[in-house]
């Protein structure tokens, strides 16, 4: 992946005038994304648009320079990410277009020249790109199907500005940084802002699976792909064995495509089924030469080191372990938040920030990960919870049984056996309205929504009209409301947590902070579309999650390793921020003055919350821990972008090549 940035400006300016007025903002924007790509920072000023690119060179290291321009049509583009099927696409395009390089960027350029925006349907990849097409006199922006590659934009006095990260929009002077209270409120309740909202005022994110056209001062956004999660019916009798075979083929193909690179590809190994399977497939394709990387925790409650090591030794990979201590996680949070550019309810991004630093240090630019399997194959507890609650809602007369819930959440309450009725009461939330689109997420959002109790009266008043759940539900295509509950749950999970948090705050932003590109075989759209066609019972068999995937995995892994249940990845929170190991920055961030200055949280409630968590860190409830994390990250966000830190050289490039403004700028 790389960083892209750019903006429109009035047409008809002489090349000299363009350079004088817009050269420096373009340089600053491109440099602000320098951490994403140290291998070249280049820009071009055309008649009416400036495009900048910070490059992480992975395919055709020599020839893949950007911005890339076609002399005949004047079509010019900047691409962040990868078109994995560029080899196949190139064969189809070669008759009509003479390729000068081996890069996937040029394949996209040729495809665009041939088919315009319709070419996106042919792309298999993770990408965000901008195309200046003089034929339509428009600036086009597009983003991949699941939202792996980020793309932000803002309206400016000259039209439109865009960038891979919001910090570039600030650095270029396109937007004055300010917190967006509605976006924050959405984040506190739903874990992520509802796209196109962000945590910053005036900064929007392009919806995943969308293409936007900016022409004559107007932006039109269109979704080019959708995943129909409700197509598997009982009539669709897919033969199980054949299903397993086809899944195995598609997965192997997805991994094979993602090993395409002119630099070595490594993998993250969490110890769970999904990343183990990806590693096993990749290692076989690479004939046993794969390197693996893992995060381990000094705190044994979160540590999966034993499983990681047994998997790595089974596969025979060159394994690297990064051990995180509470102090380490705490110390990294300011940087993690500045890269994530959103408020966080978990500290989990910080260890990934550290891991990508280690990967970079070892000279690796590309890693495979197991992200996406839980969404596609119903791996999360939330899906089981939905199934249990759905059963309750359908059988109100039957005696409810808490047994399945106890199996789901064995660690839940310290209340003893008699508490079954209380558990049922809590998990019975919303049972009277099972048709509601948010039925599956009521419990989760009730827990995270408690963060709002800590907000200041002023914040509450100013966001009184913002109902995050209502906003989200209003943004959902109408047909989704008619889907069966598990399909709706999957849709919401992909819409909020996956693209809004896991792939961004915990994904792209943490990897690219150290110029590491993560690739996700499970998010290949051929895998996603196949998974969507499978009946639920092949994914969630009873309460056994990812059933077909487990059986499929036995083609690559011993049964005993496959059988291990998922241990959800979590990083310590309360101990990090409230305990004796609390980092130095918390003193300032949690000070009543700083809290009042930022204005989002109530200083007195934050003080009481910290006291509560410091006294009982071990028994901290999930919502209390989330609240403290929300406070900390909001304060850090304000500090990083509204305070003085932006002026520091941190967003002024970092190590890497100097910015070059292309000499052919005047040509188009």
């Amino acid at each position, binding site marked *: 992946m790389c960083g892209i940035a750019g903006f429109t400006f009035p047409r008809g300016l002489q090349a000299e005038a363009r350079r004088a007025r817009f050269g420096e903002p373009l340089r600053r924007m491109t440099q602000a994304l320098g951490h994403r790509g140290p291998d070249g920072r280049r820009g071009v000023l055309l008649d009416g648009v400036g495009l900048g690119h910070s490059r992480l060179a992975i395919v055709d290291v020599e020839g893949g320079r950007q911005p890339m321009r076609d002399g005949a049509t004047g079509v010019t583009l900047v691409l962040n990410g990868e078109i994995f099927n560029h080899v196949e696409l190139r064969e189809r395009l070669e008759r009509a277009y003479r390729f000068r390089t081996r890069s996937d960027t040029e394949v996209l350029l040729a495809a665009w020249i041939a088919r315009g925006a319709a070419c996106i349907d042919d792309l298999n990849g993770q990408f965000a790109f901008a195309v200046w097409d003089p034929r339509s006199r428009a600036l086009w922006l597009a983003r991949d199907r699941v939202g792996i590659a980020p793309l932000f934009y803002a309206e400016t006095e000259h039209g439109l500005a865009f960038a891979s990260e919001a910090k570039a929009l600030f650095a270029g002077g396109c937007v004055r940084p300010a917190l967006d209270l509605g976006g924050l409120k959405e984040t506190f309740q739903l874990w992520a802002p509802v796209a196109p909202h962000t945590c910053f005022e005036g900064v929007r994110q392009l919806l995943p699976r969308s293409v936007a056209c900016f022409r004559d001062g107007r932006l039109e956004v269109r979704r080019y792909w959708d995943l129909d999660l409700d197509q598997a019916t009982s009539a669709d009798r897919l033969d199980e064995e054949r299903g397993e075979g086809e899944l195995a083929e598609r997965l192997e193909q997805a991994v094979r495509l993602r090993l395409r690179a002119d630099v070595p590809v490594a993998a993250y190994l969490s110890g769970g089924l999904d990343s183990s399977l990806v590693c096993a497939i990749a290692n076989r394709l690479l004939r046993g030469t794969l390197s693996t990387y893992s995060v381990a925790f000094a705190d044994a409650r979160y540590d999966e080191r034993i499983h990681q090591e047994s998997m790595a030794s089974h596969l025979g990979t060159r394994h690297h372990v990064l051990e995180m201590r509470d102090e380490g996680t705490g110390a990294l949070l300011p940087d993690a938040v500045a890269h994530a550019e959103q408020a966080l309810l978990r500290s989990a991004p910080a260890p990934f920030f550290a891991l990508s630093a280690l990967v970079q240090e070892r000279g690796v630019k590309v890693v495979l990960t197991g992200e996406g399997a839980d969404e596609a194959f119903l791996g999360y507890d939330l899906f089981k919870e939905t199934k249990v609650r759905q059963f309750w809602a359908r059988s109100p007369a039957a005696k409810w049984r808490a047994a399945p819930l106890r199996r789901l959440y064995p660690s*839940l*309450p*310290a*209340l*003893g*056996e*008699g*508490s079954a*009725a*209380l*558990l049922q*009461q*809590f998990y*019975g*939330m919303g049972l009277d309205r099972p048709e509601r689109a948010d039925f599956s997420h009521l419990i989760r959002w*009730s*827990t995270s*929504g*408690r963060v709002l*109790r*800590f907000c200041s009266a002023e914040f509450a008043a100013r966001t009184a009209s913002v109902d995050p759940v209502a906003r989200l539900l209003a943004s959902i295509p109408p047909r989704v409301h008619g889907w069966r509950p598990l399909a709706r749950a999957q849709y919401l999970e992909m819409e909020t947590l996956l693209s809004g948090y896991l792939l961004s705050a915990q994904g792209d932003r943490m990897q690219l902070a150290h110029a590491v590109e993560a690739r996700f075989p499970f998010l290949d759209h051929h895998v996603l579309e196949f998974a969507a066609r499978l009946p639920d019972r092949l994914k969630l068999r009873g309460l056994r999650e990812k059933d077909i995937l487990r059986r499929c995995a036995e083609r690559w892994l011993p049964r005993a390793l496959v059988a291990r249940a998922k241990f959800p990845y979590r990083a310590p929170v309360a101990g990090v921020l409230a305990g004796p190991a609390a980092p130095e920055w918390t003193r300032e961030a949690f000070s009543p003055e700083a809290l009042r200055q930022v204005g989002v949280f109530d200083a007195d*409630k934050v003080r*009481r*919350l910290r006291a*509560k968590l410091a006294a009982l860190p071990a028994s901290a*409830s*999930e*919502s209390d821990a989330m*609240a403290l994390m929300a406070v900390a990250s909001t304060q850090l966000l304000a500090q990083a972008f509204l305070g003085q830190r932006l002026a520091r050289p941190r967003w002024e490039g970092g190590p890497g090549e100097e910015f070059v403004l292309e000499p052919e700028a005047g040509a188009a």
Partner: protein
Amino acid sequence: MSTRELIRAFIVEAFFVDEFGDHESFLRTGIVDSMGMAQLVAFLEETFRISVADGELLPENLDSLERVTAFVERKVSRSAA
């Protein structure tokens, strides 16, 4: 402070809620979650010197300010009798 006021004050303090109705379900509205219930029961046992048996951990006894107050008052008067 009355029993009701004491319990209300505890809930406001421990769960950071500002306002809630006497009859509002703690669990169905998320005022208190299932973890929080353990905290609430510990508070009741300590403050009112009562002992809550497993069989009494029921929504009928605990799932609103109204219900908790009545439950505690029943327990206290019974142990006083």
